[in-house]
């Protein structure tokens, strides 16, 4: 814990964090876009059609990485929320709140692409099975965190209240993940395993994993940008933020 707080004090000092974020974010975005384009090429052009689903399966290359991200983002948010509540570290508050909208975006993509995929595969846009329902609940959790954060005037108090909610909601994450094992549903069981053999062809696997990498990097880039904006807003009274406002080296 001591080293942790030390680390946070070093890199968590707002001006330092801001500088790092400004430098790092464009590189991360660039990397994510390049990886993503390569994965798209692999998924849309190189990979062969599935013998069962024909070409419809190609939705997998966005559906699954985004689904993973929706869970990962929540986990990241909750971890930061925990740190924010226990040690009251400002950067963690901001990181937690910055990951909520990004997570919500990925959740929404998962839901929408999933239901688009469901139409040709299951013959319906939507069913009320455990995975779909728990993923929808996940979206509501994200929206609740965002809503609560925006509804409270005092930014730090708002962050703490929303962090509390995020922590309460974390029980939903394992439910989403294991729902296919616990209840029998229409939804596919796990096909991709990082440990052990995957039940998926090599030529389909690499674009999938590359896209997963791209979305992860995108997530961190987006969180950094959001966090740095919130930081300027929160620290508006401080000298360094004023300098940025007056246009000293501020990229768009």
């Amino acid at each position: 814990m001591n080293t942790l707080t030390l680390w946070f004090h070093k890199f968590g000092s707002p001006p330092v964090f801001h500088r790092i974020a400004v430098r790092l974010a464009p590189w991360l975005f660039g990397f994510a876009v390049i990886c993503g384009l390569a994965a798209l090429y692999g998924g849309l052009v190189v990979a062969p059609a599935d013998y069962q689903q024909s070409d419809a399966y190609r939705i997998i290359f966005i559906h699954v990485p985004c689904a993973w991200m929706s869970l990962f983002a929540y986990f990241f948010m909750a971890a930061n929320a925990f740190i924010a509540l226990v040690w009251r570290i400002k950067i963690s508050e901001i990181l937690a709140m910055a990951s909520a909208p990004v997570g919500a975006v990925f959740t929404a993509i998962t839901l929408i692409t999933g239901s688009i995929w469901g139409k040709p595969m299951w013959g319906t846009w939507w069913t009320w099975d455990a995975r779909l329902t728990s993923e929808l609940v996940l979206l509501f959790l994200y929206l609740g965190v965002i809503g609560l954060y925006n509804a409270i005037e005092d930014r730090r108090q708002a962050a703490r209240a929303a962090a509390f909610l995020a922590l309460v909601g974390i029980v939903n994450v394992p439910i989403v993940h294991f729902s296919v094992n616990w209840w029998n549903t229409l939804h596919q069981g796990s096909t991709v395993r990082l440990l052990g053999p995957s039940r998926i062809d090599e030529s389909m696997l690499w674009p999938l994993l590359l896209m997963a990498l791209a979305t992860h990097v995108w997530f961190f880039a987006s969180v950094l940008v959001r966090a740095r904006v919130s930081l300027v807003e929160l620290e508006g009274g401080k000298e360094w933020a004023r300098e940025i406002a007056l246009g000293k080296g501020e990229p768009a």
Partner: protein
Amino acid sequence: MRYGTNASACAALVRRDLLLTWRRRGDALNPVLFAVIVVVLFPLALGPEPNQLARISAGIVFVAILLAGLLALDTLFRGDHEDGSLEQLVLSPHPLPLLLGSKIAVHWLTTGLPLIVVAPVLAEMLHLPRSVLPVLLAALALATPLLSLFGAVCVALTVGMRRSGMLLALLVLPLYVPVLIFAAGACNAAQSGLAYLAPLLWLGAALALALVLAPLACAAALRISIS
């Protein structure tokens, strides 16, 4: 100088809240009325065939009671916050979770219990098979305290906000979903002649857990949002 025990503080709180409910007994009936309204809307919207209604009656009763409870949640701390009593309560030297637990208990007594009492009438309006009624009541008896406890945590987070009604609904929903699934699941199972005990037991276990944890979480949330 007499400082009073924890028990006497809780007793004073319970007595006051019951007295307040009694003084505004007109308002106290509001959740029941709302549930009745929602239930009445359905035959109007769906058409009155008894068979169709019977098939969905348990679910509608649950949704109606859940929505009524949701709207009633708002009153849990709202009044106390507006007139400053909540501040006084937080300042009191007795353990806050204990005091909040008493408040939640009274809230359940004055909103949850009346809803359970009116449930047979609602069920009858929707032609619920008589045999399912005991299961419905058992599920409600376990589910409504859970709703009050879960709800209290979320209300504590939104206390002090104006116009929190809809936000509260959003916050509370993820917590209510499992309760609803298990409670309505038990009734649907009973209606189809399947085993209904397992979901009820799950609800009971959740209730036991929530009884211990929810007041603590509620106190923590309140401390965050009152500052």
